[in-house]
């Protein structure tokens, strides 16, 4: 198990390095240098002397490979640079915003699992029924709706019309502030989980071992509980893992809509203000989170299904 974990972490290192390289190159080589974006205040080009001084200060007059080496060296010590705008270390900015983002993502995923998995099960246990049709209409609608629109509608109904929940903000970080953003973010993974669960259960229901269990006289409840659910879990877990990564991306829009102080809203604000170190740092953290979740899912596979070995 431990050797599997170490091997898996080592396998991830090249991907992380490649991501760092892409993020670095994207903001270093492409047209529109960092300095010109920093000094671009909409009133035309800045004084060339000022730009030259800024280049020196930021070490941008060094060749790209030296800058990349320096960036990697700093990254290894956990230094993601200093924000152009706030002059605060990016690591500190990200640390402050990590918890709200994690709260939002986990709450959205809990909503998705609690609603999506039973919805898929109900649909699969009675294929072709009204329950199946309704579940799948809900699922395909959930995948087609724009999150910010759904968020606006929920905000209008539950916050502004009914006054049950706050319309935006983090407040004291309590549950009532979390509900609307989490439901908004959780709708599309919920829909995907419902469809995945339905497809997985339908396939497993026709498997030989399920037929054998039934022919042995096992009750339907036991068949579903011991054979169907356990086998469907691997596929459901894969979907959950992949959706965690997607949620990190989609959280950007939801955080911005609900003024949620997470990494997503930091990323958007930094992009709009062209705060490159903050953009690079935010993307790096998002990718690390995504890779870590995938690794965790790989470990969980073996726990759920002993046939999957860590060899």
């Amino acid at each position, binding site marked *: 198990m431990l050797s599997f974990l170490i091997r898996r972490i080592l396998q991830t290192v090249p991907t992380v390095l490649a991501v760092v390289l892409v993020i670095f190159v994207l903001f270093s080589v492409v047209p529109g240098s960092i300095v010109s974006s920093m000094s671009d205040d909409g009133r035309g080009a800045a004084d060339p002397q000022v730009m030259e001084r800024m280049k020196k200060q930021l070490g941008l007059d060094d060749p790209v490979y030296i800058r990349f080496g320096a960036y990697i060296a700093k990254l290894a010590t956990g230094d993601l640079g200093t924000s152009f705008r706030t002059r605060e270390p990016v690591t500190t900015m990200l640390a402050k915003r990590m918890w709200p983002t994690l709260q939002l993502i986990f709450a959205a995923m809990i909503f998705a699992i609690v609603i999506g998995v039973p919805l898929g099960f109900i649909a699969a246990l009675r294929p072709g029924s009204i329950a199946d049709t309704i579940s799948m209409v809900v699922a*395909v609608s959930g995948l087609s709706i*724009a999150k910010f629109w759904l968020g*606006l509608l929920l905000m209008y109904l539950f916050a*502004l019309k009914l006054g049950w929940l706050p319309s935006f903000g983090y407040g004291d970080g309590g549950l009532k502030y979390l509900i609307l953003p989490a439901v908004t973010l959780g709708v599309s993974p919920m829909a995907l989980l419902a469809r995945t669960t339905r497809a997985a259960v339908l396939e497993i229901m026709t498997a030989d071992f399920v037929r054998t269990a039934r022919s042995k006289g096992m009750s339907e409840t036991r068949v579903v509980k011991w054979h169907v659910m356990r086998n469907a879990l691997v596929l459901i877990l894969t979907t959950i893992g992949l959706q965690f990564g*997607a949620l990190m991306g989609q959280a950007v829009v939801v955080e911005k809509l609900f003024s949620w102080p997470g990494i997503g809203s930091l990323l958007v604000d930094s992009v709009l203000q062209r705060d490159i170190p903050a953009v690079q740092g935010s993307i790096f953290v998002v990718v690390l989170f995504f890779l870590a979740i995938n690794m965790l899912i790989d470990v969980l596979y073996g726990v759920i299904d002993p046939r999957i070995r860590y060899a």
Partner: protein
Amino acid sequence: MKLGASLIIGGALFALAIFVGLFAPWLAHTDPVMDANLLNAEEPPSWIWWFGTDAQGRDIYSRVVHGARISLTVGIVSQFVNSVIGVTLGLTAGYWGGWWDDFVNGLTNLMLAIPSLIFALAIMAVLGPGLTSLLIALGLTNWSFTCRIARASTLSLKSQGYVQAARVLGYGDLRIMITQLLPNMLGPIIVIGTLGMGGAVLAEASLSFLGLGIRPPYPSWGSMLSEARDQITTAPWLSIFPGLAIFLTVLGLNLLGDGLRDILDPQSRSRRT
């Protein structure tokens, strides 16, 4: 949902969106940008203003109709670029194998490690807002799934008798890929492309909503919703109609993709998600 129903409803919704986009100048009542009149500001939906008017007195119906052009252009063009990149890389990697296959695999893993909206956001940060930037950002960030499917199809197809026969007949690599392999993997590629188009329409709307896509006053559904956010209590129709347009277009593409999958890729029916 029944198989035929997905295809018919999805196809009809997508055809409607295409029709609206193509004939927008004739279907719109006013110019979506220039015809502002403060005397008509924030009129609710009526027989004169079908979808109401915004704070500048512009006709929301005309703006939604013109918005279809931007959304569909971005959806179709960016997904076409993604499909071309994905198929080219996947087909050549599967066919040639070796170091090129390893390189393409590495590149695909890298793309899968960065959420596509985040990657698109980073590219928009560098290129700045606008239609061209949007097309580049969304066209370069969502090809990995197509690439995987094209590579897997190539690996299973290249040992087939007709491919071997083509090789014996002296066909070159490029000719075999284009005339023998590509037509046999088009089914799943079209399905992924259709579903990806829906994703691109949503991504365009999201980026425009964040202020990084199409900038006001040009009528993109996402930027219209961004403008409407602050007036949700006083003028909810400003949010309802552009959002509904996005929903119906993406719903149409998703249903169409599902329906096409059942026809073009029947093997996947049982593992449909």
